[in-house]
């Protein structure tokens, strides 16, 4: 099993930036990784730390491990570089004043802060800076405001958040190296372009995995239109024991997310089987009738031809194997994340699922699942389908100022869950049986 504890060379990892931005990078030994305005770092300086470790870029791409991205910044050692430092102070003061008076166009309340800051002497700013260094100035000013003045009231919470966030982005040169698990990959893609994940949230992914009862050793049938993020999540939970048959609608399945999973191609090939819809619908037609050559015939072949023969033989075997596997059915779950209309494919999939095993269908839209549930209501092979919606609401946890975050992503998706059962023609309902 791959190392999930220690930051290891040649792994793809998630780099979290103070801006809440994320990057996926490969840690090549000796490499240097650029983080844009946040600076750059040398790969060798992070290897061996625990995943989750945060660092601060000090100078010349040098790193200092820190407790967390939001740890209070320690005094800078640049006090020797007097001119620059003084210049910095001026710049910071200017920037603060400008930032705050700009804000005041949109938020009258912040006028208070603006004028307060304008009244700060250079010494005071220096003190503020010393007591917490640049990146903490904002926090400290706000702290002072809160303590001393009721004008800094809740009206400015939006501004505070915006302000603090902006400060962190501007002044912090920090990052965290996180293990790139399925949750992190989901977060990364959501941040880049949530439509690629059909807007699926982390909580909905969790529900999907749990209701699908994904576990080591299972045999699953999957449609994954997210480029493999769901597949990755399943492989994590399966510990790469068992099989996933991935249904795709093109010539080849797209599971590009696995490129960053640190799983070897061999492992993926042995656990993940691909099949397209045509192969599911017309299995006998789509099987490859591979004509074997005899030992003698093969010996007569030239080497390149022979290796081509073996390659084709393997491919034929692979295709036939997965087609037969689906023909056999008895999958431990069917899981679907696609923009295809479920009512058009479910009739072909339901027979493939084993008794008492779950069928879970994700959609961005409740209306799609509504239609699907109605479609299934006359199909006695799916017991008690329901539509679930899970939403997580995060809080700000600054003690003394605890409240739910003001805004969050609206989308997250819905899942329909049902259980595959074997109806009996003969049964006679009594009362309402369902």
């Amino acid at each position, binding site marked *: 099993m791959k190392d999930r504890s220690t930051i290891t060379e040649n792994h793809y990892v998630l780099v979290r930036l103070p801006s809440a931005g994320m990057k996926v990078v490969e840690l090549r030994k000796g490499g240097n990784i650029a983080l844009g305005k946040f600076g750059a770092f040398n790969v060798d300086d992070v290897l061996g730390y625990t995943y989750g470790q945060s660092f601060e870029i000090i100078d010349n791409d040098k790193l200092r491990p820190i407790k967390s991205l939001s740890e209070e910044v320690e005094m800078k050692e640049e006090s020797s570089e007097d001119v620059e430092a003084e210049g910095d102070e001026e710049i910071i003061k200017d920037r603060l004043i400008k930032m705050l008076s700009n804000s005041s166009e949109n938020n*009258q309340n912040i006028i208070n802060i603006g004028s307060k800051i304008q009244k700060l002497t250079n010494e005071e700013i220096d003190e503020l800076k010393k007591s917490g260094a640049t990146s903490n100035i904002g926090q400290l000013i706000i702290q002072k405001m809160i303590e001393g003045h009721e004008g800094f009231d809740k009206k400015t919470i939006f501004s505070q958040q915006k302000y603090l966030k902006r400060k962190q982005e501007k002044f912090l040169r920090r990052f965290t190296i996180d293990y790139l698990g399925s949750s992190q990959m989901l977060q990364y893609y959501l941040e880049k372009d949530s439509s690629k994940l059909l807007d699926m949230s982390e909580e909905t992914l969790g529900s999907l995995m749990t209701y699908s009862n994904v576990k080591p050793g299972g045999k699953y049938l999957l449609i994954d239109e997210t480029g493999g993020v769901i597949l990755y999540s399943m492989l994590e939970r399966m510990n790469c024991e068992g099989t996933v048959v991935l249904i795709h609608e093109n010539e080849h399945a797209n599971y*590009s997310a696995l490129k960053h999973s640190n799983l070897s191609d061999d492992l993926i090939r042995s656990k993940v089987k691909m099949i397209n819809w045509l192969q599911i619908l017309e299995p006998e037609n789509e099987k490859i009738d591979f004509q074997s050559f005899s030992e003698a015939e093969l010996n007569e072949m030239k080497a390149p031809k022979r290796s081509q023969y073996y390659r084709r033989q393997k491919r034929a075997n692979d295709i036939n194997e997965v087609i037969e596997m689906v023909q056999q059915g008895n999958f431990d779950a069917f899981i679907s994340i696609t923009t295809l209309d479920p009512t058009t494919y479910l009739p072909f999939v339901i027979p493939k699922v084993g008794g008492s095993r779950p069928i879970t269908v994700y959609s961005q*839209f409740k209306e*799609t699942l509504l239609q699907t549930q109605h479609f299934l209501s006359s199909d006695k092979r799916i017991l008690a389908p329901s539509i679930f919606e899970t939403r997580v609401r995060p809080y700000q946890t600054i003690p003394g100022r605890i409240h*739910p975050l*003001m805004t969050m992503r609206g989308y997250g998706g819905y899942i329909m869950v049902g259980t595959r059962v074997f109806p009996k023609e003969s049964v006679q309902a009594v009362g309402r049986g369902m």
Partner: protein
Amino acid sequence: MSFFSYKDVIEEGDLVLAFISRTDTKPITVTKGQILNTRFGHFKHEDMVGLKYGEQMEGAKGYGFIHLLHPTPELWTLSLPHRTQIVYTHDSAYIMQRLNVISGTRVIEAGTGSASFTHSFARTVGAAGRVFTYEFHEPRYIEAKKELEEHGLTTNTLITHRDVCEGGFEIANIPANFVSKNGGIDADMVFLDLPSPWTAITQLDSVMSKTSKVGVCCFSPCIEQVQKTVEALQEHGWINIELVEVSGRRWEARKDMIRDMGDVVKRLKDIQSRRGKGIETRKRGYLANGKRQLEEETDDSDSGVNKLPNTGKGFNPFGRGERVKEGDANYTWRNVTKVESEIKTHTSYLTFAIRLPC
């Protein structure tokens, strides 16, 4: 134009809310010689005179348009020029209903803030009711006062520059038409949008109704404020203390393409047959009896969806890949609702309580 009643035709000097898009409404006072510039063209104020409220107006150059809307407190809230944090309509509507703010109610509001909720109160209590609103912050007070006057709301709304936590709510020289028949402010309902409502709660006794139940709503973003507020309310004889959160969602009707698995299969077959023809001559030795012939291996790349020509209606299921216009009649669609991409998950906690006369 008035927030108290609708008028039909726009006159010079009227406040008009120019609806440019769902997220962009501009308040303008119709003034000869002035021009409203938008990204959809420009619009001469003088051309608005004589048009009806609600009318769609063409740009001065013959293209683009806006809608000329009559102000309401809620539209005004959305079009506030310099927007501070406001009490959103989901919250304000519930507060009004729950505390039974109706025509004739006497309301205390502190602080005034952007005066957006003040507008709602003034509209709802009408000529028979009164609104006493207090603002601590001077520039905000001055701006709100000006706005209330311009909007004709000072007939039932009195704004006072005051830190109520220090100075309380009593007003020395209440204008005669603001004095209750029971004397003084005599409020039925109190709305406290202050950082420390617990300091204001102690000051309310002398300005509340002595003859009827009084309702209060404290509007606080943090739970710690709520905790202190609940304690203060209990200590000062308020009952039925209840904390709630209001969540509001806005949904849009949209269309989502219905992609049929049958089309996928047709397409896969089409690929196979086209490919099959191309490689027929190259194939030897591995042919099978009636079954699919082995395809040429292609690069097993992860590059994903292959781009293929659209072969007609219902046959190309790649809605996302090809930027099909939503609702395009060449495809079938499902009606779906979509929530805003960013939703408001929290505005403030609302702490309600009532007090009976002692």
